[in-house]
């Protein structure tokens, strides 16, 4: 399912925190549908309803305050033991293409798009195209070549991706690409990300190793100081 011109993003906010997250980036994305998810993490010990009884109104107020600051998007408030499954459920219900994390950017001019391979590529490019068509930022497509892989493969991937964006109606001048041969995608993305205002990443099914050792993606997202837009892998 590739959609153009109908981008919906989910923005999860922890409403148990008194300090609202930095979401200035939301005001610079142009005409994008936003679903604001306020989640209240519930420890295993408590019944979710117990915390809702006590903190429901306060949490709703916080969520309303965040929403008011950013143009009054759709709001959902959930009390949950499991943040991840709540994000998944709400993203499914509201048909969201991507999930935005908070970060320090105050403008959105430059977008970094690391690409791994063909996995999820169509969806990522569709989201990037929507983003570029809705606003006026420029994008850099980026690929980090694996240690013993042929760099020309990466070039091909990136050039093909640029063409796809142009096919979607994006002005070719707003898109460039970069290839890295350092062999360490994680460091590349985190370092390069600092020069950009937003990073668009593709979500992938975690491998067994990632399940045990920790998710590479969430590791990158945590390390990034700028906001990240994680494109969901629905299939």
């Amino acid at each position, binding site marked *: 399912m590739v959609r153009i011109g109908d981008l919906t993003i989910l923005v999860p906010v922890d409403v148990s925190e008194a300090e609202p997250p930095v979401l200035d980036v939301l005001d610079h994305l142009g005409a994008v549908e936003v679903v604001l998810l306020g989640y209240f993490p519930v420890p295993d010990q408590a019944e979710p309803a117990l915390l*809702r009884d006590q903190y429901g109104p306060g949490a709703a107020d916080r969520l309303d305050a965040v929403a008011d600051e950013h143009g009054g998007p759709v709001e959902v408030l959930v009390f949950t033991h499991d943040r991840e499954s709540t994000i998944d459920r709400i993203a499914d219900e509201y048909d969201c293409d991507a999930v935005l994390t908070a970060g320090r950017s105050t403008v959105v001019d430059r977008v970094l798009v690391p690409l791994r391979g063909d996995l999820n590529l169509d969806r990522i490019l569709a989201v990037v195209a929507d983003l570029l068509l809705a606003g006026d930022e420029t994008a850099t497509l980026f690929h980090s070549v694996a240690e013993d892989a042929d760099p020309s493969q990466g070039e091909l991937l990136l050039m093909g991706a640029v063409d796809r964006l142009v096919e979607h109606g994006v002005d070719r001048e707003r898109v460039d690409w970069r290839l890295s041969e350092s062999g360490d995608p994680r460091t590349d993305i985190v370092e390069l990300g600092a020069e950009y205002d937003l990073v668009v990443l593709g979500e992938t099914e975690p491998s067994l190793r990632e399940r045990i050792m920790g998710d590479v993606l969430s590791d990158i997202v945590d390390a990034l100081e700028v906001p990240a837009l994680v494109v969901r892998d629905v299939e």
Partner: protein
Amino acid sequence: MSAEGGELERTLGFLEAMTLGGGTMIGAGIFILPGIAAQTAGPASSIAYAIAGFVALLAALSLSELATGMPIAGGSYHYVNRALGGLFGAVVGWGMWTGLMFASAFYMIGFGQYLVEPIPFLDGRVFIVGLGLLGLVLLLGVNYYGTEESSAFQNVTIGVETAIVLVFVAVGVFFIDPENLEPFAPFGPGGVVATTGIVFISFLGFEIIATVAGEIKNPGRIIPLSMILSVVLVTILYVLVMLVSTGVIPFESLGDSPIPVSDVAVTYLGPAGVVAIVFAAIIAAISSSNSSILAASRVIYAMGRDGVVTDWFNVSHPRFYTPHRAIAATGGVTALLILVGLEVEAIIALLAEAASFSFLVAYSLVHVSLVVFRRTDPDGYDPSFALPRPVYPAVPILGVGLSLVVVSQMATVVVVIGTGIVAFGVVWYAVYARGRVVSEGLLAEAIRGTPAEPYRVVVPVANPETQRGLLRLAAASAHANEDRGTPELVAVNVTPVAHPSPLQNVEADRADHQRDLLENARDVATEMDVTLRTRAVVARDVGEGILDVLEEEAADEVILGWDGTLGRDDHVFGATVDPVVRHAHCDISLVDLRDEAVGTPVALVAPGPNAPVVAHQAVEFATVDEAVPTLLNVQPPRGAGDSDAENRGRAVVADVAEAAGLDPDEYEVQVVVADDVGQAVVEATSRYDTVCVGLSGRVEGPRIPFGDVTERVVQDVPSNVALIRGS
């Protein structure tokens, strides 16, 4: 706009439910009790485990149906409270709470025994009790600070624990000496039944699945599946463990051991086997004790929600968000129970039996509750898993019968303690809870059977400020129509849910709404002496929800609150009211209560099909404050000096009153002669407290017509306004 107060996520899947149920069950019960069981029943103690498992299975079957009908926190306590009312609710609530504390103390002493016994120089009760307390303190600490998403860790530890027990059984069957199993039942059937009462505690845990029902995904499927499957599998496992234990070691020497399973394992698995069994026993004790503490805090939450105990327990920690007071209270009493172990030699069997007693009583009442629910079939009880016939009457009957048999064979001291706890629940209800508890239960209804044909007035309520006034009007209406049927009020609250999903817990919302509704509505109902039922409905749209209820209840009349605005945002009366006015097939009163007092009503009557309904409604509303309503007619003069206008007006009123079946002493008449009818109506009606106006015409298509006069009344008259349309 966010949904009111927020959604509740369901996060426990099948695997989590199974590990929760199985992990709680496979605890100290199977690692400690084989010794005591062997002492009292010999090799036939495996039969005792099988009977206890069967009793647990019966409870699991009844609980499955109830839990899928009401997937909400509280488990047995909640179902009994709903079905049998606050008295039994208090008995079961306190019984479960104390039972869980007994169980938790039992697990921790078992934990101490398994740590102390293998180490020769650490002998003695003081060490056992001390280690038990230490373990408890650690557990309380963890639960006080709170944990998040620890299920992966739990799955692994409980998996390892189960695997060790499976190896123990699988290898052990080859070492069974048939001679050890002779005689099979040295203490006869009495010994077996008495043992059943002790070992029943080994099955506590499956109910935890019902206690956390509000957090289980797809509750209709996962609750019955995990509950029944875990009881069956665990029963088979226990029977095998007991057969292996009594088959490998003569039951006399098994009975002397505080760590029987480890003593069996050493004979064929060597020291490695002992280490593994000790490890499994410790994990089992900790996980069972932990689950019991958590289950207790959920029972306390449910009791606080229903007003059976103070809500003080349910204030969660400002930083960790844990129910720290409930956890601390449970932990404190559990610690005292462990300390009793210093003085009382047979503490472990006593704790086990006392916990079993509490839960056997609770499950008996659960079986009775199932019967009550089936008989009354209350609204909102629509279990997705229902016991088929003939399983249905058989399960609750057998369940109660067997529980009584088991209880009858328990030690006197346990029966005294258990009866004391039940008595405490009764006293607690009488002294503390009676005034606060809102649940009346369905017992009376179940015995009475179905009532005669009612005259039913439905009142959707949402706003606590206006619901009182609306209910009073509705009660008055129902009473005034006593000749058409037994007056009955149905208060409805619709919870709008944008995206109903099996992953979201809306039951808790229903319960909360119902509680507020009940408290408020019951006062009014008692005051007005009318039967009241409440319905809490979940629907995509409030208007649709109300229409569904009107349809299902075959309502005679609906009284809708309305904020007195007309024609805003493409709606005539509002997004909720419009569809009801458009599609309802009963009498409708749209009421804008601007003042608390209903006082003296006035009905604006003019010839038309609606007028008798309007006049009758004014008479009904007048009974609230025992006033006499006025029927008002405004006549424009036919030319100057028309002296007949007054008489024409009186004739109109008389006709309408007759059509409405009113006696002349039930109303006053007022006729105003004026050129400007609208102005005259506004001036005349402003002197009354409540104005009843007809909602003209039948509604066809998207438009809801209302006349100019109606509009002027709504906008210019300061009194309460009721717009009325006949069916």
